[in-house]
């Protein structure tokens, strides 16, 4: 096949169907009497997709859409029912954290087994072990204990480290990015970023569209076993979002109207969102905002960690959850993160607020210095109304000039 070398994963018209039987003996009846007794469950059909070498590729879709089946196919734990596939390079799969771990064995023995599982030869094992334990940040006495005595956070840290310390060409990850505490989540994300920088291929699925958008170059939306959208991440994520919004429908809208009731992520975040206010010439948090008024948006946060640089982002959201506009301090140029303990205030000025009449809400995000990890957030807060005195229709006033009216 031409250009095969630049492809890490090559799937051609892949289908995966499971046979299931109402009664176990039906399986025998089918074999002996050649009588069809099975029902087919089609997990995937007509999947054609290429993942290029060095690409970070995301899979989005609902639960049960077939994302995990697709990852298992690439990982080689199941095989397709139809179609052709090629996986070029060594695959490390992270389909379930700690799948190869035994609770009665020590952390050390479990890691050693993972080394053997990934074909790491005897000499390189010690080196591998050192890398795993360094990344997992577990002390030697903990590693000498059976894994069943670990907290779930410790367990996941070790499992994630063991799975990613191998040096694969292709890394397959299923929903494993939100592991452990904040600090470790960030480290795990950084590890994925390192893989990306090292030119490795990463294939992962996630429910977190923000993560998919930030990490992936291309993506595919899988729906009921088929590819609904494939290509640039932004297109795919938007298409999927549109579908989700449609599905959620108007019922959600009503509850969203409650606005400020939506709480922030947790009171324990190291950088906390405190307050957001809107200021116009009519004062702070006015009854309504007029279109074309200068509008100042002030966000207050409090940092409890001097060593955690962060960014602040916000979005203006219509009351039906539609994002109107959002930006973040890391989109500035240069986008230096905010540092230091204590209170911080981020103020944005809209010299001439262009939204037309409607009800809007704010969502505020505190992000880490990469802009990927969400440290704290408050969605759907501070409802405000905009009134447009003019007669133009629509959501937003677009600058325009009538050049000829004859």
């Amino acid at each position: 096949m031409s250009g095969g070398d630049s492809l890490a994963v090559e799937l051609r018209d892949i289908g995966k169907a499971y046979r299931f039987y109402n009664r176990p003996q039906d399986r025998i009846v089918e074999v002996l009497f050649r009588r069809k007794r099975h029902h087919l469950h089609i997990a995937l059909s007509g999947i054609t997709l290429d993942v290029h070498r060095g690409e970070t590729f995301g899979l989005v879709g609902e639960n049960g859409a077939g994302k995990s089946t697709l990852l298992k196919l690439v990982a080689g734990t199941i095989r397709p029912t139809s179609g052709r596939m090629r996986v070029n390079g060594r695959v490390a799969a992270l389909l379930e954290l700690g799948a190869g771990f035994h609770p009665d064995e020590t952390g050390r023995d479990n890691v050693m087994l993972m080394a053997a599982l990934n074909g790491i030869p005897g000499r390189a094992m010690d080196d591998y072990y050192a890398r795993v334990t360094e990344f997992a940040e577990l002390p030697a006495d903990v590693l000498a204990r059976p894994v069943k005595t670990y907290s779930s956070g410790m367990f996941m840290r070790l499992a994630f480290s063991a799975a990613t310390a191998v040096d694969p060409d292709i890394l397959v990850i299923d929903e494993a990015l939100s592991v452990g505490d904040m600090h470790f989540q960030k480290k795990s994300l950084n590890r994925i970023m390192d893989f990306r920088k090292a030119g490795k291929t990463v294939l992962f699925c996630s429910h977190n569209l923000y993560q998919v958008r930030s990490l992936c170059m291309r993506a595919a939306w899988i729906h009921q076993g088929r590819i609904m959208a494939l290509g640039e991440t932004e297109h795919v994520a938007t298409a999927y979002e549109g579908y989700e919004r449609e599905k959620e429908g108007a019922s959600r809208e009503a509850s969203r109207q409650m606005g400020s009731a939506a709480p922030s992520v947790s009171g324990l975040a190291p950088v906390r969102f405190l307050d957001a206010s809107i200021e116009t010439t009519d004062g702070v948090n006015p009854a309504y905002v007029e279109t074309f008024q200068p509008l100042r948006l002030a966000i207050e946060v409090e940092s409890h960690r001097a060593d955690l640089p962060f960014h602040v982002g916000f979005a203006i959201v219509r009351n039906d959850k539609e994002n109107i506009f959002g930006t973040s301090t890391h989109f500035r140029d240069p986008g230096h993160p905010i540092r230091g303990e204590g209170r911080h205030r981020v103020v944005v000025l809209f010299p001439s607020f262009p939204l037309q009449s409607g009800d809007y809400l704010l969502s505020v995000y505190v992000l880490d210095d990469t802009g990927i990890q969400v440290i704290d957030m408050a969605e759907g807060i501070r409802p405000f109304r905009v009134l447009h005195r003019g007669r133009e229709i629509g959501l937003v006033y677009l600058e325009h000039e009538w050049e000829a009216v004859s």
Partner: protein
Amino acid sequence: MTARLPLFLLWLRRDIKSRYAGSIMGIFWAVLSPLLTISLFYVLFAHIFKVRVPELASDTGFFYYLLTGILPWLAMSEGLARSTGVLAAYEQFLQKQPFPVAILPTTAVIAALLPQVVGTVVLIFLLATNGLFRPSALLYLPYLLCMQIAMTLGLGMALSILALHVRDLLQAVPISLQFVFYATPILYPLNMVPAEYHHLFVLNPFACLIMGYQHAFLGTSTGNLVLLAIPLWGLALGLGGYLLFRVLKPTLGETL
């Protein structure tokens, strides 16, 4: 294959360790439980049923006979019983972790050899101290052990993959093994069986192998047909089981 050896050894260690983890006697159960079984049979068959083996006239003759036969039997039956269920037990795991599947039944079969190895050393020691040890047994031993592993491994691999599709095997294999146990001359010498049935024992691979062990260690007389059957059974079960496993392996993970 070479890359799989370290994995196999670690998996074997995990299998043995984890089975006895948390118990006070730990790994000693591997020796203790066959010891109790052997004691029970010894008291029952040597002192109550008064079974005597013609070639071994001494009082303890039956004990040696029992030990020679039951050590490989326990290893084989345990290996088979455990390998039958092993793929069914690890089915979920195998979907989540790329893994050389054959290691699972192999580990079950090989781990079960542990008590046999310890017991055989004890048997040789006992025979030697009583002047009954036959040095030629050391020549037979590796050969018989190879045949034993070939039979058990082949059968174990086949059963492990078949049990995924026919779950009834999980129940049927242990009870069938009990029948085979009594159809194998372990608790009784063959001469207690009516002569017209002797040729039927050739059809029992376990009986052939165990008569081979008894012949090698104790010098009991065994028909040439039986001795010839050992390598044939080893080849048939070993190769047949392996091929069946190879053919059915793609069906793994299809039984959702």
